């Protein structure tokens, strides 16, 4: 069976695509056109993040908040609060680190403006063996 009718030439194809695109744009609801909307979009992209870090007992001062892969960071104040010094965007990862506690990663999501986090202590058993260069002396029977 020959289907001659369905064959298009290259120029025809181009036309159909062009018309389709114009139609798609024309009937699509208007997004991101007003000025106000644009500014919230930017705010969504880059914004100042604040937060509160605590452990089981309460707010924890001196906790380091660092942007992963950089040297940019801040420590929590006596109330366990912080304001990150750099505007952050979605997908950025903050490292929350305090010696003796598990390092936690916090991913900045579209809805993240305030990070509230309870960090937990490391579960670790401490032991130590003394290093020495003292010459061995055997305990003799006699």
């Amino acid at each position, binding site marked *: 069976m020959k289907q001659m009718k369905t064959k298009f030439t290259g120029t025809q194809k181009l036309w159909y695509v062009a018309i389709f695109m114009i139609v798609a744009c024309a009937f699509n609801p208007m997004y991101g056109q007003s000025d106000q909307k644009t500014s919230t979009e930017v705010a969504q992209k880059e914004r100042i993040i604040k937060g509160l870090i605590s452990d089981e007992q309460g707010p924890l001062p001196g906790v380091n908040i660092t942007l992963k892969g950089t040297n940019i*960071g801040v420590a929590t104040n006596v109330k366990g609060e912080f304001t990150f010094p750099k505007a952050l965007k979605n997908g950025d990862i903050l490292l929350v*680190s305090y010696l003796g506690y598990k390092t936690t990663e916090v991913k900045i999501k579209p809805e993240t403006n305030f990070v509230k986090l309870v960090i937990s202590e490391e579960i670790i058993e401490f032991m*130590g063996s*003394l*290093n020495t260069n003292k010459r061995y002396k055997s305990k003799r029977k006699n």
Partner: protein
Amino acid sequence: MNTIKYIFLFIFVFQLNAQKSDFSTITFEKADRIALEYKNEKLTNLPELAYKLTSDLTTDVERFRAIFKWVCSNVANDYYLYSKNMRKRQRYKNDSVRLKDWNDEFKKVIFQKLRRNNRTICTGYAYLIKELANLANIDCEIVHGFAKTSTINIETLDVPNHSWNAVKLSGKWYLCDPTWASGIPDPESAQFEFQFNDGFFLSDPNIFAVNHFPVDEKWSLLNDDQPSFNTFLDAPIIYNKAYTYFSNHNAPKKLHTDIRKNEHVIFKLQLLKSVKKEDVNLLIDTTFTSKKIHPESISIKDQSLTIDYTFDTTGYYDVHLYVKDDLISTYTVEVNK
């Protein structure tokens, strides 16, 4: 097809000996210089410290080196903490509840000491190495286990007493002992003397197994050659400097040897670097005397040092192997008629 065969051969054969010489083309000068540059940094901000130590280095082994060198040169071993912990651990060893309570309390003290004074004990070193390495995206684990030194009483070595690290570099696991790499505490003055020992950085698993026994045996990295706990307890004593010169200790397998008069003992170790025959000595102690001997029969062949020594007098001897002035190992020999 042949190429594939060789690639497989390369992967599997060269996987076996994970040690520092794998990176012989890399010098650690830059990493060591960076570690030195940040001397006096505090431990109050680990992410920042990890960034400072590693961001200018291009390979993982150099990054890990900078971390290792920094920790070993800036964190002191706290003798007071060590002895207090050992006493409590011995006392509560059969009482898991009290041991846990003690550990929870001690943990707080340890971390506070680290933050404020840069002082710790073994697990603190291993913990810092792991944390800093992880912050630099390097896979690193703490290994708990038993360690044997010349002053440890083997009869009471029934609870784990030491912690060290395993680190994954270029897809392979390596061993290191940051506590022992950092220096030596003086039990009398409780002072710590920094003395970096390169031998504990990516050590050969064979020599490592002579005085380290991991609780989780996979961390021996020796596959099927992992010695049993009793073999480990019976092994000769090796000292810090053994790691500077040697990659393995082959013979004698035990600390103690019983022989008859005029029989000989063979000492055999694998060399990491070349030593001169005239630098190899034995120091032989009896109860009252101490005699330095340069053995006649020493052979150095294929990176292997062999000493063949004949005992011609009966007695009980502590035999110490020295290279130059460096104490390597100790054996006891009883010579009977």
